């Protein structure tokens, strides 16, 4: 019997598999397909202070081994998430969730974090400073160590639960940004968000995505994510939730060897709705194959 349990800042997970924010909604669509309580946890749809429709459509484009999205943080706003989505979610998920929060100013991040911190279902607060799809915010915070530091500090001041900062790969030096998170009190790092990308339609000769650019995710970005998790693991002492292109149990193990304590699965959920279930079911078999008895023993094993 292998042990798949891992611990994130005191929160014990049955396994390290966590659907990534924006690819799992608030869970119900998937709860119709399988018992989502098998998940380690899950990170719910990025939530902002005000309700948002997001960007104009088309906001999805096919890519080799991946996809571009420019949804732009469509969500019902923090008040409705607390009053409507969380109570509904409670009916299909009895574990702690990861609350993914976004903002357009330091005050908005604090506003949402302070409120979501009071919700009993929330185990970890994941601060998204890396959405590539919103102007005047989102990624603007995640691309400067100084701004990430400000957000981290402000959120930590108003919360009691572990705070993870979700980082953008669209930076020159992700290590310095991760260090700024740690120095300002972050309990962990989530990485990586999507890579800024574009597709052009040969018929119209214009970008496919209405917003022109969007976030590239999917199988193709796994090597980039692994490299960045590996680099950040060497530079910080706080846990990392690794993500980017993960779609198999083997990918989960690879991400943990690079330095991740837990692993998020994103785009794979959209093309294979049973992706997380399949990974969780395969994980013990793959562990046996590679002679891993205790999953947490391999964290950072590649270093």
């Amino acid at each position, binding site marked *: 019997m292998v042990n798949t349990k891992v611990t994130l800042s005191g929160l014990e997970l049955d396994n390290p598999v966590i659907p990534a924010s924006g690819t799992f909604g608030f869970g119900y669509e998937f709860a119709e397909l399988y018992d989502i309580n098998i998940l380690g946890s899950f990170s719910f749809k990025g939530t902002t202070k005000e309700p948002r429709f997001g960007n104009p459509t088309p906001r*999805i484009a096919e890519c080799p081994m991946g996809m571009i999205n420019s949804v732009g943080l469509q969500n019902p706003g923090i008040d409705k998430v607390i009053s409507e989505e969380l109570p509904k979610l409670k009916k299909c998920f009895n574990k702690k969730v990861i609350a993914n929060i976004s903002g357009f100013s330091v005050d908005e991040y604090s506003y949402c974090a302070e409120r979501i911190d009071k919700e009993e279902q929330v185990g970890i607060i994941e601060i998204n400073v890396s959405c590539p799809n919103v102007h005047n915010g989102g990624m603007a915070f995640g691309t400067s160590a100084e701004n990430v530091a400000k957000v981290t500090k402000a959120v930590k001041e108003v919360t009691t639960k572990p705070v993870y900062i979700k980082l953008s790969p669209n930076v020159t030096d992700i290590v310095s940004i991760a260090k700024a998170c740690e120095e300002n009190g972050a309990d962990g790092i989530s990485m990586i968000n999507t890579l800024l990308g574009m597709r052009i339609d040969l018929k119209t000769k214009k970008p496919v995505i209405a917003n022109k650019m969007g976030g590239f995710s999917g199988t193709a970005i796994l090597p980039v994510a692994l490299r960045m998790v590996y680099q950040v693991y060497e530079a910080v002492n706080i846990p990392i939730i690794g993500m980017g292109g993960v779609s198999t149990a083997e990918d989960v193990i690879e991400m943990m060897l690079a330095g991740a304590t837990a692993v998020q699965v994103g785009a794979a959920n*959209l093309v294979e709705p049973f992706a997380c279930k399949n990974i969780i079911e395969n994980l013990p078999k793959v562990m046996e194959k590679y002679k891993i008895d205790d999953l947490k023993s391999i964290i950072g094993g590649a270093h």
Partner: protein
Amino acid sequence: MKQSIFEVKANTKIAENTYKMVLGGDCSGITASGQFVNIKLDGFFLRRPISVCDYDDNELTLIYKALGKGTEYMAELGAGAKLDILTGLGNGYDLSKSGNEPVLIGGGAGVPPMYNLCRKLVAEGKKPQVILGFNKENEVFFENEFKALGAEVTVTTADGSYGMKGFVTDALKNMKYTYIYSCGPEPMLKAIYNTAETSGQLSFEERMGCGFGACMGCSCATKYGNKRICKDGPVLEMEEIIW
């Protein structure tokens, strides 16, 4: 929604760039006319959403246009090919509002979902009238199939090379009907809305990520709030659409 493996039984060209694929497999996930399926294709990341033309317990008929790399790949599949398909996606049409003589309007690649809808309405004893709109003669398909169901069929072509010259709305103007069901390009749906003398349901298209409501890739704003074309649609009531 259900995920199952289907086997291609036949895949034939029926008009310019237009193919009819008949598949064998478990169709129990499909619950309404106007729903769609989402097909995994080797070598492509996103699934391809295709509207359902017809189905019974274990046979699925799709008609699709080979316009991009994914559908061109589909066009090359032969009998025996296996496909991983999510079925029963989207809301589909509400038949209860049809009245006795609804009009069904399909434009180009929007023709297929009208077929199963027409078959069901006929089975309910309704008298559907059908308008099929195409650009030109070599794109026309399924006129006889609709006639075989017992429907009165008008074909329009934009260039007049077959049937009535003009758009579907030119045919609609001269008709008496109790309700409208339609699927086709958005400019056509808008023209129908502007011509309509009754209420109706229109099926929309959008680039989708998942096809089952998770990613918010295909949202559209309606008078009744934001809707996901894949999950809350693709069929919307005429009155709720913000043009």
